[in-house]
């Protein structure tokens, strides 16, 4: 589904990604871990198409298409979804209006008519139930004044509404309380199927207890320096990063 080859990207003179190789297939869950500032969010943003970052080398192939050629909205139309580490506040637009616009535009891109409002509201209610979201939330302004946890839940709500093929969850667990973590993870698991894939960026093993990864990667200095199965996350949880980053520094 997603093939990243030797991806190099950065901002102005500062190269942040120094040759990333990653392959994600349908039905898989990948976890990306790594110290602060190692480039995890940058990788996610480059996949989603943030043009602030300049790609200076390598390629990203998504279902046989060159993703780097596409605008962010076109990537979304293909089914790429990013749950932001820091979701953006948009005063003046309600959650329901935002999601309606988003779904309408995605459907338009596929040559489909807008979803009837009744169906849309029904779907929203179902997904709200799935994620244990309170009523009254739909009429609030997008992320405005939301608590950290509410913002994260709102990201997963959008994911549930948009039904993407590839979801990248950038630290969706941070800021969530224990119950919310379980609810959100549960939601993600329910949305999982053999046709889509999930990449979770996290610092904590705890999330991976709920969303069990098939692969775990360690990103350091803009490179994946180690990959393994779910047991790698346990090992990192106990030992920290030192033992692998030292090795990488020595090379």
């Amino acid at each position, binding site marked *: 589904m997603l093939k990243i080859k030797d991806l190099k990207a950065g901002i102005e003179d500062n190269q942040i990604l120094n040759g990333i190789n990653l392959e994600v297939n349908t039905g898989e869950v990948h976890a990306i871990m790594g110290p602060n500032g190692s480039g995890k969010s940058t990788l996610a943003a480059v996949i989603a198409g943030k043009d602030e970052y300049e790609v200076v080398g390598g390629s990203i192939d998504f279902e046989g298409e060159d993703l780097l050629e596409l605008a962010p909205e076109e990537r979304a139309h293909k089914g790429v979804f990013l749950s932001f580490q820091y979701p953006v506040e948009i005063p003046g637009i309600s959650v329901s209006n935002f999601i309606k*616009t988003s779904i309408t535009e995605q459907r338009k891109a596929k040559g489909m008519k807008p979803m009837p409002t009744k169906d849309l509201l029904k779907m929203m209610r179902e997904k709200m139930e799935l994620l244990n979201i309170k009523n009254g939330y739909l009429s609030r302004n997008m992320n405005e004044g939301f608590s950290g946890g509410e913002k994260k839940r709102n990201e997963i709500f959008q994911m549930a509404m948009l039904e993407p093929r590839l979801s990248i969850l950038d630290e969706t667990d941070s800021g969530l309380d224990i119950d919310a973590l379980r609810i959100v993870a549960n939601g993600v698991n329910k949305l999982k199927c053999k046709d889509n894939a999930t990449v979770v960026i996290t610092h904590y093993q705890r999330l991976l207890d709920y969303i069990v990864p098939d692969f775990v990667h360690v990103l350091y200095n803009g490179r994946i320096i180690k990959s393994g199965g779910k047991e790698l996350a346990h090992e990192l949880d106990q030992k920290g990063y030192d033992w692998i980053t030292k090795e990488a520094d020595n090379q």
Partner: protein
Amino acid sequence: MSLIENLKSYSEGIKISSNKNQLLNSFFEKGFPTIQDEEWKYTSLKKLISEDYSIEKNGSPLSHLDISNHSLGFKNKIVFSDGKLISTPKIEGITFSDFSDFECSTSDPFLQLNSALANNGFTIKVDSNTIVDGVIEILFFTTTENSFNQYRNQIIIKDNAEVKFVEKIQNLGSSTSFVNHFTQIDCGKNTNVEYNKIQNNTEKSKLIDTMNIFQKEDSTCNINTLIFGGSFTRNNLNFEQNGSNCESNMNGVSILDKNQLADNHTFVDHKQPHCTSNEMYKGVYLGNSKGVFNGKIMVRQDAQKIDAFQSNNNLLLSENSTIDSKPQLEIYADDVKCSHGCTIGQLDEDALFYMRSRGIGITEAKAVLTYAFASEAIENISILEVKLLAQKLLAKKLNVDLDFSV
């Protein structure tokens, strides 16, 4: 010929009272204001007044379709066609009549000209305790090419009455116009008035709109100004609070492109204690458009416990658009809460990316953020039809097929 020559030759052919003659002469002596005039510093009339206008009307009659095409659909309509009042509604407790002379002493050249030569307009009297159900729509149509029109309107609202208006000035066909519009509203005690101006005229039309509002105690007056069309728009909105416990509210939204200019001059004269004024103007500028905002708030010595709030927020969405914004506070009382703020900015890049990552195209994302920016002022409008129209016009102006009304 230029406008002043048009006016001279027109006035030579008519008879007016000596009072009016005096006003006219003082207008001709000084002529139109120039950018040397403090009140017109950022807005040049030069090009406007150098054009040739026809003062006499020679338009064609209106059809029902013309009216329904431009109406917001309210049952109660006042309709003008090239200056002539052609239709008034029947509402219990309200008298509608044609133009009538009323005085206002003024040194403003446009008002002098209006006082001296205007002979079109309406007079509305709302009896005390009348609560008007629904909205009164006022439509001014022009069909004459290059016409110069002056309307002089008066609305008298007696104590405890409540009424809402929507006003539109509209050119039809290929006609263009320069309108010097004046409306005076007298708000009685404990009245509640809302007046909405939809300024969405054709591309070449020009408008100078002056509104003087006199408020008695316990009255509330809301004026909403929506500017989408026209090449030149100058609004002078003046409130005088003559009783305690008055509330004056203003909301403004301008969405301009190409070479449009819109200048909003507001003035609130707080003369009595325990009053509020609340003003929110939002401007969005594309292309080579230009905005001017001048918000004057005067708090006189006896006007204690005043709460005056003013904000002017602007989005410059193109390199060549400009905005000149100037608050002007004169406060002579000491127990006063007065705040004002002006911002000039661009769309938030992070928000744009966020929306695009959700599949919303860049043009649509920009439109949504622009709507979000303006929505605070639009949301303050109490009339659903006006709100929806504002949303529709905004989407049209930004070239998107979006529905903001969820």
